[in-house]
């Protein structure tokens, strides 16, 4: 099936982003929100179409492999959380004094969303790379928006690491083109040679680049600073969406089955190291950032044992982690600084949403975090790797300690003496937090049919 | 003859790249980088890609160098 | 016409050689800049003219002629700007008193 809404999914946010600088400061956030809601509508419509058939579009009328093909498949359903989280982040940021909702800030978010859309629907390796660049450069800009000290340095480190990843991916795409004479993913998959050093280097290079973009354990060093110093609305986008692009890239890599043994170990290392690092953080946002490293490790492990479980988990984790970062942003907003002890006493709604998000992040049923994690555990057991199943459960226990600790810090510690009385977060912050928290539970309740849909 | 030209250009390319990496002075590195781009431009031209060569000359050796110099002038003031 | 390319090409090559020797051997910034300017202007200009003659008649020879005129304008201006900047920075010219 083909529909013009598929290229529109990419074009709408980018067109919206290009037009933002022509607007006044006042209208930029409203415009950004409207454009992202329209994008969300298109993404939902395409997901609905997917129930019957895969959606494919030949750009310019050139049949693949000669032209560029866009394809909306199960992985592309990630477009829905992308549009949702980005749409909720814009109103959330209107209260902060960081330049997220200036025309430039909104433009970066919209174009970055368009880049992610292009990335998830690309069925051509070079298109995948181009849109990876669009979303990466937007991400560097998003980190740089922060007013916090060290944000510039964090963005610069992120830029260096991200550029290395991009170059490795570009070289690998070049090698794949030399080996097969084609760039279309399906076509490349069919024309791959049986072996040889160039093929291994191409697959290994793609995997390494995407693992770096996904911030897997030894390659995660850029992530905590970038995600913790960014404005909270942006952290939700970075941690919920942009690191997942590395995972989607891995899922698109041909011949990944050669690397399963590597992925399983790298994933397990990342799972445990991320959780342990998270345990020793005193700052809520840094803890959340390390918990992302841990969850990415879980997904990478899942890639090797149960791809469906991994796909389900990136969708769920996007929503859960976004809700947690937004709640953290609300605490920090009301506290006026990163010292958030005791803010939860006067913010019961935000605190309860944070607790719900924490439960979902640990993976307790019936929340969304459970479905994917459980499928990966089952996959590991089925593959006879019960040691890895134990590691996943151990990681969940450590993360449970982290979240429990911060709920206690926020809700029961006394506030610092120098802080004035705080109050519940404003409505534009509460509503996005609640929508995401509700979804992170709701997706778990419909988890069974949802997983069946993804697995199809 | 043609292969020899390639070899000479590639050698110069590697030498300028090393010189950029080793340069202590940022402005010198920017200028060496422009020389590197020029070598690359000639190489593209010789490999039969005039479009890429033109881009390399205009963007790589031209605008990028100018922007580097602006930043260096603004930061080391 | 294309025979004219040979003398112009030789002139250009000679100036490039002389300028390169000058660049390596002359004592201070200003005299080296002077050598480089010769190389840029007369050397490159003559070679462009030689190429224009070699490809005459045709569109390309006019384009090369245009480039030669541009070199004639831009080369001296650039070395003037360099020398002026060096002077403003206080780079002292070499004199016969120096070793």
């Amino acid at each position, binding site marked *: 099936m083909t529909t013009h809404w598929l290229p529109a999914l990419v074009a709408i946010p980018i067109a919206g982003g290009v037009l933002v600088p022509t607007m006044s400061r006042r209208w930029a956030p409203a415009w950004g929100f409207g454009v992202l809601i329209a994008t969300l509508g298109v993404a939902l419509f395409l997901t609905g179409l997917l129930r019957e058939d895969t959606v494919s579009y030949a*750009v310019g009328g050139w049949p693949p492999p000669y032209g560029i093909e866009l394809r909306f498949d199960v992985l592309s359903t990630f477009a829905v959380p992308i549009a949702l989280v980005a749409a909720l982040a814009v109103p959330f940021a209107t209260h902060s004094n960081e330049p997220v909702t200036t025309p430039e800030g909104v433009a970066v978010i919209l174009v970055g969303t368009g880049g992610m859309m292009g990335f998830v629907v690309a069925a051509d390796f070079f298109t995948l790379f181009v849109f990876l660049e669009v979303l990466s450069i937007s991400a560097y800009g998003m980190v740089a928006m922060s007013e916090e000290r060290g944000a510039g340095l964090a963005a610069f480190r992120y830029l260096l690491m991200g550029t290395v990843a991009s170059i490795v991916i570009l070289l690998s795409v070049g090698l794949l083109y030399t080996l097969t004479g084609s760039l279309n993913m399906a076509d490349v998959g069919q024309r791959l040679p049986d072996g040889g050093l160039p093929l291994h280097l191409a697959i290994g290079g793609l995997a390494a680049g995407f693992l770096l973009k996904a911030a897997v354990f030894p390659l995660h060093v850029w992530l905590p600073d970038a995600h913790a110093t960014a404005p909270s609305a942006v952290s939700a986008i970075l941690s919920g969406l942009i690191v997942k692009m590395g995972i989607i890239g891995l899922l698109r890599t041909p011949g990944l089955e050669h690397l399963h043994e590597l992925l399983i170990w790298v994933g397990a290392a990342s799972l445990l190291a991320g959780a342990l690092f998270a345990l020793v953080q005193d700052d809520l946002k840094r803890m959340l950032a390390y918990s992302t490293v841990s969850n990415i490790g879980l997904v990478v492990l899942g890639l090797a044992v149960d791809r469906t479980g991994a796909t389900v988990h990136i969708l769920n984790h996007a929503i859960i982690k976004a809700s947690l970062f937004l709640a953290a942003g609300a605490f920090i907003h009301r506290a006026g600084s990163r010292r958030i002890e005791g803010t939860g006493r006067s913010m019961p709604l935000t605190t309860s949403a944070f607790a719900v998000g924490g439960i979902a992040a640990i993976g307790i049923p019936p929340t969304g975090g459970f479905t994917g994690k459980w499928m990966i555990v089952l996959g590991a057991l089925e593959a006879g790797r019960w040691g890895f199943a134990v590691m996943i459960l151990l990681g969940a226990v450590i993360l449970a300690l982290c979240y429990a600790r911060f709920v206690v810090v926020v809700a029961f510690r006394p506030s610092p003496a120098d802080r004035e009385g705080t109050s519940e977060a404003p409505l534009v912050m509460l509503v996005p937090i609640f929508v995401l928290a509700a979804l992170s539970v709701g997706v778990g309740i419909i988890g069974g049919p949802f997983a069946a849909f993804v697995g199809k | 003859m043609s292969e020899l030209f390639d070899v000479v250009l590639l050698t110069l390319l590697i030498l300028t790249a090393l010189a950029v990496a080793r340069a202590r002075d940022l402005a010198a590195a920017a200028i060496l980088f422009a020389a590197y781009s020029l070598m690359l431009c000639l190489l593209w031209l010789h490999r039969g890609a005039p479009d890429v060569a033109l881009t390399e000359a205009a963007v790589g050796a031209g605008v990028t160098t100018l922007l580097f110099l602006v930043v260096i002038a603004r930061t080391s003031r | 016409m294309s025979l004219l390319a040979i003398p112009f090409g030789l002139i250009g090559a000679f100036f490039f050689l002389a300028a390169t020797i000058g660049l390596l051997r002359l004592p201070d910034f200003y005299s080296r800049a002077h050598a480089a300017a010769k190389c840029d202007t007369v050397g490159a200009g003559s070679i462009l003219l030689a190429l224009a003659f070699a490809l005459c008649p045709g569109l390309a020879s006019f384009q090369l002629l245009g480039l030669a005129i541009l070199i004639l304008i831009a080369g001296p201006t650039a070395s003037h700007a360099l020398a002026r900047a060096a002077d403003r920075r206080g780079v002292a010219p070499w004199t016969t008193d120096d070793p």
Partner: protein
Amino acid sequence: MNPRLAAAFVTGLAVPMLAAMAALPRHGSPDQPIHTHVAREYIESGPETGNLVTAILLDYRGMDTFGEVVVIFVGLVAVLVLARHREPALPAASPSPIVAFIVRLVTPFIALFGFHVILSGLEVPGGGLQGAAILGGLVILNGFVFGPQHARSLLPGRLLPWLQGAGPLAFLAAGIVGGIATGFALGYPTHLPLLHEAMLMGVELGIGIGGALIFSRLYLALEDA
């Protein structure tokens, strides 16, 4: 980074890459997949006149070029976000009268050449991005000589926010027009030669003008930061 570590890292990266290069099919041998599959189709059924590179960039792989133009745009916007702490740019030191005269003299010619490169890209090597770099470089040159304030006065004031997005916007317009004319987004109507030519020209001009303004604004943002 520790220089020895860096050297070891680069060597570790370079050795397998060089080995893979050696294992690749020899450059230029005609029976390799790179020459027999998609590329041959482009050469055989591409346009008979004009620049094949431009045809591939704007037509077969128009979506990628659109993405690349968006990359340049978002690069500018990201720098503008970073460079928001404004300090007024320094006025230029009084320029040498010779340099000032020559730059005034050549500016219109370089501008003409820039537009020539943008539009002649359809026939000979050249095109929007290369022309954009020439025009942007011209603005930066004027800024170097006469100061950033003068360079700013060369840009279109009120139209600037629209024109700096001209690249992506031209692509979007071509995508919609092509979609109506051919039924596929970013399709070029070969059965309507005049419209086809106009669309290609429009996209090249959009990339060129938008790109030139992006390069100029990058320069001004860096001067102001």
